[in-house]
C-alpha cells in the first residue's frame, strides 16, 4: 500500500488562496485505507479549510467528491462532469494520483493535499511501516525477506557497515535495528548463512528515469 499524510494546513491554504471554487477529490484506494485521503478525510479537510479561510476578504467554496481510484482512468467519469465547474482541484491521492488528475484536466490547476511517504505495510490500524523502495530489482529472496535498500540507513548491499552496535542497532539511531544484523540472524535460523557471503555488484540505479511496466500478455496491444 502507498502511504501518505496530509500536508500542513498552512501549505494547502497557501496553494489555494487565489481560487474561489475548489473541488477536493478523495481517493478510495491506498490513501483511503491509510486514513489520509478518503471520503472522511475530504470532509475533515474541507471543514478545516473553511475555518482557515474564515474572515478572508473573498470567500472560497470547498466541495468534496471521492472516486474509487485516482490512478485509473476508468473511475473518472463522474469527476469529468464536475471539474469544469471549479477553478482548482485539490487531490487527496498519492503522487501518482495527483499527476493522473493533472494530466486529465490540463486546463485546471491541480494541487496535492498529501505528501506521499512510502510503500509499506500496516503494523496495526493507523500504524504503517516502510517496507519497499520500489528499486525494481528485488533481492529479498537472498536476504531472508528483509530489504537492505529500505531498512539499512545506507542502503548497503554488502553490509553491515562498521556502525552496528553490539546489540544490533544502527549508528544512525539506537532505536533503529541494523538491517544486516537482522538479515544475518534470520539467514542463520534458516540455515542459509552462505547467502551473506555473496558479494553483490553495485546497483544500476535506473530509477532515475520514469519507469513503465507493460505486462507480457499486453505487449502486443501497446506496441508502438
Amino acid at each position, binding site marked *: 500500500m502507498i502511504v501518505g499524510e496530509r500536508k500542513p494546513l498552512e501549505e494547502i491554504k497557501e496553494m489555494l488562496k487565489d481560487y474561489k471554487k475548489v473541488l477536493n477529490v478523495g481517493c*478510495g484506494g491506498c490513501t483511503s*485505507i491509510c486514513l489520509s485521503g478518503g471520503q472522511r478525510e475530504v470532509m475533515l479537510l474541507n471543514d478545516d479549510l473553511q475555518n482557515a479561510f474564515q474572515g478572508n476578504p473573498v470567500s472560497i467554496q470547498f466541495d468534496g467528491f*471521492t472516486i*474509487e481510484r485516482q490512478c485509473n482512468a*476508468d473511475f473518472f467519469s463522474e469527476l469529468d462532469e464536475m471539474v469544469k465547474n471549479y477553478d482548482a482541484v485539490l487531490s487527496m491521492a498519492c503522487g501518482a494520483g495527483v499527476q493522473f488528475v493533472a494530466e486529465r484536466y490540463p486546463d485546471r490547476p491541480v494541487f496535492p493535499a498529501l505528501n506521499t511517504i512510502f510503500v509499506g505495510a500496516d503494523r496495526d*490500524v493507523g500504524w504503517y511501516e516502510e517496507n519497499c523502495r520500489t528499486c525494481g530489482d528485488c533481492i529479498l529472496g537472498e536476504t531472508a525477506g528483509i530489504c537492505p535498500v529500505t531498512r539499512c540507513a545506507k542502503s548497503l548491499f554488502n553490509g553491515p557497515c562498521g556502525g552496528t552496535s553490539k546489540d544490533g542497532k544502527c549508528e544512525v539511531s539506537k532505536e533503529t535495528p541494523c538491517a544486516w544484523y537482522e538479515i544475518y540472524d534470520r539467514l542463520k535460523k534458516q540455515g542459509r548463512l552462505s547467502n551473506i557471503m555473496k558479494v553483490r555488484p553495485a546497483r544500476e540505479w535506473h530509477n532515475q528515469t520514469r519507469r513503465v511496466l507493460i505486462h507480457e500478455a499486453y505487449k502486443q496491444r501497446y506496441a508502438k
Partner: protein
Amino acid sequence: MSTQETKPIRTDEIRRMLKKKRAKMKRLLSHCVHCSLCAESCFLYMAHDKDPQYMPSYKVLQSLGKLYRKRGKVDRPFLEHIKGIVWRNCVLCRRCYCPIGIDIPSMITFARTICRSQGVYPRVDESVSESWL
C-alpha cells in the same frame, strides 16, 4: 457515530443519479445471460471455494440491480447491506471478464458512488465484526 451516519437517506438524490445513467445501466443489467463466465475470472470467487455470492454478476444484480428495482426508494440498512457487497466482496480489480462485453466494474463503481453520496462507505475504525479492510 458521525452526523452523516444519522442523516436521512436522500432518495431523491439517489433517484436522480439512477435516472442519469438509466439507459446505459439498464442495458448492461438486461444483457446478462447468466453464463457465469465472469465468475471464473474473479479471484475472490475462486478464493472462496466458488461461493456464488462472490460471482461478479451476483454482486451487480444484488446491489445496482436492486437499487434500480426499488427505484432508489431505499433506507440506510439497505445501503449498509449493499456496502458489504460492493466493498467487501469486490476490490474493483477490473479483471472480471464478460463475453458479451458488460462492463461489470463500472456498475460496481456506480453502486459505490451512490452509497458514497449518502455517506455510506467503509471505515477503517469500524468495529472488528464490521470491518473488512
